[in-house]
């Protein structure tokens, strides 16, 4: 009992750090992903090319490579960020490429008749994209976005590679201090489950809500 009581304060802090990281990354990644996703269907060749390049590049990069490059390599050219900042920015960039891909497949699922009808009504391009195309595209990919959100939460653990003391980092710290890896890692696993299961459930509820309307 004393053992668990000893662990709790550190774990609460670690859980909070993970949650903050996930929330900040999500708040940055979803709008960025939408922009890049829309950029890929823009009738401007260079914008399409850039968005394509971004998606292909980032989706081909393992997250540790992004984190380590931000944290260890960029200070060489005078760009120094905190470990937390590197992790948040890296995660946001990484997840945005997946969101963009999801948005694109959602856009593909919208029948072209909607666009033609909207233009026939004389709506501006901005309304066609922001008001007709995107809402339907995003509705179509809510399950994918749910999976991505769960992945995002799990990926915060990789911030441990650049010494952010989030849940995984806390667990490793406690293991080196208390030398009891099994209960400590199980506790960390429960901490992640506490974040991922409600997230998954929330997106399933959202999906259900849109399905029957």
């Amino acid at each position: 009992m004393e053992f668990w009581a000893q662990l709790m304060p550190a774990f609460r802090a670690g859980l909070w750090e993970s949650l903050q990281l996930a929330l900040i990354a999500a708040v940055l990644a979803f709008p960025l992903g939408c922009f890049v996703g829309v950029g890929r269907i823009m009738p401007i060749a260079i914008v399409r090319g850039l968005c394509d390049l971004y998606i292909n590049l980032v989706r081909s990069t393992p997250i540790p490579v992004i984190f380590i490059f931000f944290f260890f390599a960029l200070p060489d050219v005078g760009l120094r960020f905190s470990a937390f900042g590197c992790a948040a920015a890296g995660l946001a960039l990484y997840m945005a490429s997946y969101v963009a891909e999801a948005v694109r497949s959602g856009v593909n699922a919208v029948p072209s008749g909607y666009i033609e009808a909207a233009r026939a009504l004389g709506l501006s391009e901005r309304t066609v994209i922001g008001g007709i195309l995107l809402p339907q595209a995003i509705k179509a990919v809510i399950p994918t976005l749910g999976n991505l959100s769960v992945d995002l939460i799990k990926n915060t653990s990789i911030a441990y590679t650049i010494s952010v003391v989030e849940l995984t980092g806390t667990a490793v710290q406690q293991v080196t201090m208390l030398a009891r890896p099994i209960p400590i890692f199980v506790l960390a696993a429960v901490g992640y489950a506490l974040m991922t299961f409600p997230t998954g459930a929330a997106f399933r509820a959202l999906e259900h809500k849109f399905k029957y309307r």
Partner: protein
Amino acid sequence: MDYRLLAKDLSPRAEARLRAVGALVALLCVLALALVAYGLHRTGELEARRWQIFAHGATWKFLAIGLWNTVRVALADLLFAMALGGLVAMAQTSRYKFLKLAGGAYAEFFRAIPTLLMILFCFFGLPLLGLDVTPFWAIVIGSGLYNAAVLSNIFKSGIQTIASGQSEAGYSLGLARKHVMVGIVWPQALRRMRPSIVAQCVVLFKDSSLGFVIGYEEVLRRSQEIGTFTSSSLQPYFVGGCIYIVVIYLLRRLSEQGGRRTDEFAA
């Protein structure tokens, strides 16, 4: 929906505006590139002596062995995950309620936990149970447990998409359930699921870079070692990152092509 639709029948004014935006973006790109190049030049990162270590064949051999280690661990991981995932999928589609529940619980639980946490658990936790775990096996088991959960779901949905008429035909021929599953349902399901399986291979390959944390000698760890040797960071991490990016990009292209080919057969 296609991007060409958004560009169709635009007014001359809208077309001019799009061209202007395009030109502006191009200008910004050139500016950004110039800024990066200037920054690198000013801090001396582009000087030849900083890159000199990569002029030696031994450096590339060192990195190539790192890449081989990455491939090796990914292959072992794949084998382990396929075998375990197959078992879990069998449990999930079995007639026995207990096995069904156990399989479902396995898939739900292991998809909710970060792979890195499981690799660390295997690395620090399994030795206490009397197992001698090298970093290699910690990655294979830790990442394999997660990938087995994902693969089991792929297998399960693959099995469920095979029309029930197929297995019913088997039963009416007097085949036992195990023969129907092994001889009729699984082969068709596997063929249909191949694109998803190959896509999961890309994830699995990316995961092997997590071995960095527990000192597995993969490309990233070896880049770091080169950096320690030359006391630089940007150059070795850049090269190591590029190796990963190129290999994973090729793998992704391969998986997308595989998907297209299966579609053709399925049609």
